[in-house]
């Protein structure tokens, strides 16, 4: 562009923005198709007799799949497990994350390297962290925990048999603590030094400082962490798949794993579709509340 040329007349410029809006069409279409087509198919399957093992038995089934699913003792437990996993992990990661953030807000030797170490678990793929914990830490024979318990005279415990859900909570919390920590640390560090100084001058102790200065400042970070963790943790799957496989019984089966059981173990597409709708419904209920509180924290 060597010369300044008025290429466009006034009304052409005015129509330009509409042309630009077209650039948003591909992304919107893809996301629309992605969220609507499978959902409609799921809805359709949920009223059909459809088992991959019995290809001849097809047709309309009315509420059959719904009745079947509602009578499945696994369903209630799976919903409960889904919510319990999410709530516990949120509490643990945000609680410990806040403490860690305050610790790493202090100046100490080698802080940068220590922070990198704390962050590392977040970048580890879920199948690696789950197997690492299952086999090398929690294993009742060869695990490190078993070694530690033996060396103080205790009898090692088979954690995935005794407390499968708790074991999974520990593993997933370990993976997500770094994210909560890093978000909260960023928020703590953006807190104005002068405000802290002023509070200190007014004689605020450590607890009062946290209660009245730091915690209110963390609202945004907590909202954002809750939102992202909910997105990723409602569908915990790999960690269950490689450790407890949902057992013993249904003790550590969440909705994701229940649907997986229907599809790839029983080949029951109709049943899986209904369970899928339950999962979507649950997610939307949570999304409705989360989105509302999160949207307030955005400057979009």
């Amino acid at each position, binding site marked *: 562009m060597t010369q*300044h040329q008025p290429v466009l007349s006034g009304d052409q410029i005015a129509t*330009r*923005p509409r042309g*630009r*809006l077209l650039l948003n069409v591909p*992304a919107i279409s*893809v*996301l629309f198709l992605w969220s609507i*087509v*499978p959902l409609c198919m*799921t809805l359709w*399957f949920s009223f059909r007799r459809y088992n991959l093992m019995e290809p001849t038995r097809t047709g309309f089934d009315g509420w059959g799949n719904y009745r079947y699913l509602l009578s499945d003792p696994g369903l209630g437990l799976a919903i409960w497990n889904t919510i319990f996993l999410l709530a516990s992990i949120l509490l643990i990661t945000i609680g410990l994350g806040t403490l860690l953030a305050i*610790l*790493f807000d202090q*100046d100490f*030797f*080698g*802080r940068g390297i*220590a*922070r990198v170490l704390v962050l*590392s678990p*977040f*970048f580890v*793929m*879920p*199948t*690696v962290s789950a*197997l*690492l914990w*299952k086999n*090398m830490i929690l294993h009742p024979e*060869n695990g490190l925990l078993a070694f530690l318990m033996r060396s103080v005279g205790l009898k090692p415990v088979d954690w995935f048999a005794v407390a499968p859900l708790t074991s999974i909570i520990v593993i997933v919390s370990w993976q997500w*603590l770094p994210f909560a920590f*890093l*978000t909260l640390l*960023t*928020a703590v560090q953006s807190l104005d030094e002068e405000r802290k100084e002023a509070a200190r001058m007014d004689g605020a102790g450590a607890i009062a400082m946290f209660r009245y200065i730091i915690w209110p400042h963390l609202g*945004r*970070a907590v*909202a*954002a962490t809750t939102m*992202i963790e909910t997105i990723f943790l*409602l*569908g915990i*799957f*790999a960690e269950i*798949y490689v450790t407890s496989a949902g057992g013993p019984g249904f003790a550590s089966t969440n*909705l*994701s794993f229940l*649907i*997986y059981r229907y599809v790839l173990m029983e080949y029951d597409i109709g049943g*899986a579709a209904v369970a*899928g709708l339950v*999962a979507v419904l*649950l997610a939307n209920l*949570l*999304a409705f509340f*989360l*989105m509302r509180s999160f949207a307030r924290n955005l400057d*979009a």
Partner: protein
Amino acid sequence: MTPIELRRKTLFTLLGWAVALLLSFPLLWMVLTSFKSEAAAIARVPHLFFHPTLESFRVVQEQSNYLRFAWNSIVVSLGSTLLALLFAIPSAYTMAFSPTRRTRGTLLWMLSTKMMPSVGVLVPIYLIFRDTGLLDTRTGLLVVDAVGNLPIVIWMLYTFFKEVPREVLEAGRMDGAGPVREIYNLLLPLSLPGIVSTSLLATILAWNEAFWSLTLTAAKAAPLTAFIASFSSPQGLFYAKLSAASTMAIAPILVLGWVSQRQLVRGLTFGAVK
């Protein structure tokens, strides 16, 4: 530094490092184990000092062709990132520079598609893939990962684009640059750091994606997440091999993660925390 300050700093150093070592211990232990012989790895009393060996790395590659899975992971994560960027850049550009009353709602709607649990659409996607021959192909997994990450990529780019001064783009527009030229010649160079960190995050997410890898791929297109899952059988009790395979699977992404840690918060919280 006064003695009291020094004592305080020393105290926090001890505390901070104790916490850091405790939290990263499982990983450090895994890396250490990958250099042990299989016998040393399951010793009743764990060895801290031992003769390091690369035996396990060699065996993992020879027995299960590790490099093939690694190649699948590379193709899928890089490919899905490029595909997501291709759709996300025009979209984020429009919303950042030609906002309308609906922009905010559109952005939130995009994010809400991410709230939809993957399992909710597992059945239809599985059947569509089966009927179109996409099951157990890299292309199939790549597309699903790209669409899955699209909302996050759009959001991140949107927050970065918002920081590019409008005047620069408007000057280009006056010079007659169309949207494509405007994006390519002006926007991309100006927001390069933002695009790089968005790509890093998308690559990390795709590399570590497990749900679709485990359900849509088998022997042919399985990436590393699925390969490691195959160790959940008794094979996983070969600790040195499990550790070696895992170490190789996470090493590249760990480095990317460390590099992008700062932008990560901003990106994943959609600019709400910076």
